[in-house]
């Protein structure tokens, strides 16, 4: 039995002779390549495993003929589609069949990166030096000087020069087998047949990516008889595109791909889901004077830790059964730019997560305090780092706590915990969440770094104490 369909029902509904004849012009090289591919699939017993990706070009209808799993790709994208199929079912035998316009022009990125990835797929590249389907335009592989529909004066200096795809592909590390073959005489045809079979065999053995370039005839657009076209390939193309094996290595096979995991316990673990209730410490939503939806802004420079503090706050609130949100906002720099965080903590639902007029501001540096201090609602709370802000702007409408975050952290031996000092200060200044609830969030964050736990707990406590001292001083 052949790998060709008994009837080509997809070819114009298999009307008349189309049920058994291809749509190719007389003498076209594609039919030969189809035959060798079909016989290779058959001889290796791969018909039931094969997924054939048809390109755009004359072979767009390859699925009319080949009785295998078929898919038809967008122009140039066949190797990307092939990668998608191979990753979906590593046991499938995936063939990407492409012409020169498809592979060497519009699809350059896709072929190079599929080759570079090196998955065991087989690419058949049929190079006939011209665009066939669209009517004989210049291809990336057209020889210099050749007159085509889009190079009526002959391919010239503005048209680039013919691209040797097999050599380019062979330069990459990953491909295991690259050969260029031709079809112009019986000897070449035998070699082409063998090369295609070898490419498929290497895939079956999971050796890696193989690439077979076939120099083929397009008698119609070369305006030659089939015999003359064969001669033309021999005389004009072979000197440009030397035949033979360009690369042939035999590495260890790719390892077998394990089945994707759908075990619920494993998935739960991977997505970070924790079982059991988190401990709750709050007795209802705190009476802060700011209502049931409290807006907090934390502002500083990148590295100050404002985002971490914001996340700890949000996590603690959510674990208490409240709703909370956090929006980060950064300057364009990866490090050292501005870093602001808007947090909302609400009894039932955060309505608007931005905090243009926060109830509470935590400022890590002077520019942040100057920028956001005046936006805090009257009666609000401002906590800032006294270490780096010597002269705060006047903020008569709010309650201000000047706490030396950085200095305390330095005393504890690690400047990086200044944001945890700030978290403690925020807790004491607002009473928004119980201390234990925030400490629980700190402990969870350090689950895998227990050596830093005591330091962070101390930092938190020092922040709390600093604010309490300020409150006492105010009373006295």
């Amino acid at each position, binding site marked *: 039995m052949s790998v*060709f369909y008994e*009837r080509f*029902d997809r070819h114009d*509904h298999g*009307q008349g*002779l189309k*049920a058994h*004849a291809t749509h190719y*012009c*007389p*003498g*076209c090289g594609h*039919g030969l390549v189809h*035959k060798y591919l079909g016989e290779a699939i058959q001889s290796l017993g791969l018909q*039931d495993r094969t*997924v054939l990706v048809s390109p755009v070009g004359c072979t767009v*209808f390859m699925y009319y003929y080949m009785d295998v*799993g078929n*898919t*038809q790709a*967008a122009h140039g994208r066949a190797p*990307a*589609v092939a*990668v*998608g*199929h*191979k*990753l*979906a*079912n590593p046991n*499938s*035998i995936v063939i990407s069949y492409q012409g020169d316009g498809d592979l060497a022009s519009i699809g350059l*990125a*896709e072929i190079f990166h599929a080759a570079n990835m090196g998955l065991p797929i087989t690419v058949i590249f049929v190079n006939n030096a011209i665009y066939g389907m669209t009517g004989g335009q210049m291809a990336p592989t057209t020889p210099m000087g050749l007159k085509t529909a889009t190079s009526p004066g002959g391919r010239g200096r503005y048209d680039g020069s013919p691209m040797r795809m097999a050599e380019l592909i062979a330069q990459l590390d990953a491909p295991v087998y690259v050969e260029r073959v031709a079809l112009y005489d*019986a000897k070449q045809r*035998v070699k082409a047949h063998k090369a295609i079979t070898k490419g498929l065999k290497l895939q079956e053995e999971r050796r890696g990516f193989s690439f077979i370039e076939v120099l083929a005839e397009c008698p119609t657009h070369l305006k030659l008889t089939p*015999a003359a076209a*064969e001669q033309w390939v021999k005389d004009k193309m072979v000197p440009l595109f030397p035949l033979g094996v360009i690369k042939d290595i035999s590495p260890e096979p790719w390892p077998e*791909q394990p*089945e*994707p*995991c*759908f075990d*619920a*316990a494993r*998935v*739960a673990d*991977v997505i970070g*889901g*924790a079982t059991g209730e988190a401990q709750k410490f709050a007795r209802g939503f705190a009476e802060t004077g700011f209502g049931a939806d409290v807006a907090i802004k934390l502002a500083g420079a990148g590295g100050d830790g404002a985002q971490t503090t914001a*996340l700890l706050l949000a996590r603690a609130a*959510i*674990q208490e059964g409240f*709703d909370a949100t*956090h*929006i980060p906002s950064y300057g364009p720099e990866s490090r050292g730019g501005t870093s602001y965080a808007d947090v909302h903590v609400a009894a039932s639902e955060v*309505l*608007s*997560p*931005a905090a243009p007029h926060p109830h509470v501001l935590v400022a890590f540096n002077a520019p942040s305090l100057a920028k956001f201090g005046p936006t805090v609602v009257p009666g609000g709370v401002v906590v800032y780092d006294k270490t780096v802000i010597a002269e705060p702007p006047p903020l008569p409408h709010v309650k201000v706590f000047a706490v030396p975050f950085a200095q305390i952290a330095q005393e504890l031996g690690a400047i990086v915990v200044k944001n945890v000092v700030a978290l403690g200060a925020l807790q004491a200044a607002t009473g928004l969440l119980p201390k234990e609830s925030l400490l629980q969030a700190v402990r969870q964050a350090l689950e895998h770094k227990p050596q830093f736990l005591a330091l962070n707990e101390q930092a938190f406590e020092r922040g709390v104490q600093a604010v309490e001292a300020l409150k006492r001083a105010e009373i006295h």
Partner: protein
Amino acid sequence: MAQTRERPKPVLHPDFCKGCGRCIESCPKHCIEAGTEIDGATGLIPVQLRLDSCNGCSLCLEACPEPYGLDHESPEPRSSEPPHIPGTENLVAIAAKRRVAETIPDVRVPMPALRPLVVKGTYASAIGALLAGCRHFFGYPITPSTDGAELMAKLLPELEGHFVQAVSEVATINHMYGTGGAGLRCMTFTSSPGFSLMLEGLSYMIGAEIPGVVVDVMRAGPGLGNIGPEQGDIKIACRGPGHGTTQTLVYAPATPQEMLDLTMLAFDKAFEYRNPVLVACDGYLGQITGRVDLPSYMVKPGLPDWAVWGDAAHRPNLHTSILLNEADQEAHNVKLLAKYAQMIDREQRADLYETDDADVLIVAANTPARTAKGAVAVLRKQGIKAGLFRPITLWPFPIRALAPVLPRMKAVVVVEASNGQLEDELRLALSHADLHAPPPITNVRHYGGIMPQMNEIVACARAAHEATPSRRTRETEAEAAARVLS
């Protein structure tokens, strides 16, 4: 003892010979020559065989480009088979006739009870995808969507899944064409410029009826724009992503929770309709961290009967979007349109907040809808009965939920981070529903990475409320005058 066996000699089927003559020079015994008689069926001149000295070397078979031109000896000529009567059936029908695979159904696997997660929007979406059974991710880094991709890169290998950083968004969507075509659940995260690059592939996926989920974290444009939040992709998402008769469901989450829920839903819908599904969120939502409750189940996907999987059962299947015969292409379009009509009929989703007694209706989606919710609370404190209509599906626009509340409204305020793209969807839906006299529609719009602010929404809604319905005509005239003057 040496065995000799006579090798079969070639048989020519003149009807399938195009007379190219490639076999002539291949024969070492010179058994083949160019023909002289025109074949009545093809109008071509087939070659002629004189097999007296043929030794069955089969080199001529290797030289014949036609599968059934030169053949091994075969008992009956193929042309004697009954002619196939062309009808209205298209390729899909042919494939259906040949189908032998049976769909392996998806299974919902119970999950242990888990504490709520505290994660950002992109993470919630990625986790939703994992719970929905997606084990293949393809993507290209682009801010502000990349966090989601990074989480997938970290987690997928732990579930024996695949994360592929594609060479571009163009390759990304075509990887999805492959994996989706194989019948598996796959996705990508992208942001506006990347989404533009995916439109070609989306059109092919829609044409070939291949499912997949694209999460577009919309950023400011046009062009490179900036990485601030916008909703500027609503137009290309809802008016048909890609060339031709294209349409996809477009979900617009407003919270990290919905990023998870709607991503999960998107996978189910993508496979239910065999069509890509878009999840469109703004850059803010991608970054907003919030509470995310986990579902009680996860999905272990099966394998659909239409998959091109690479096994015997699925061998007859084909994915293609080319139908050369115009009648076939039209029939395919009619089929797609029927599918879109079903989506319009079944898939509209909306959230109505405080609309029961409202007379000013704010319409907003994504993060602007949360800001608008805040504005509703403020307006109500000020004594204005405001409500919020939040489309969860941007396409189909949930007109069925909007129509009944609309007559009670004195005014509609559309709030969006785009140049009126949401309002256009609203107006188009009104028109299609033959609702030609809606209340006056005003708007709060920002673009360029700036989001509508709550105080602006409050001010706009107040102004709209204070204008009585009877002043509507005059207002319109005044607006027209203002436009002319400006």
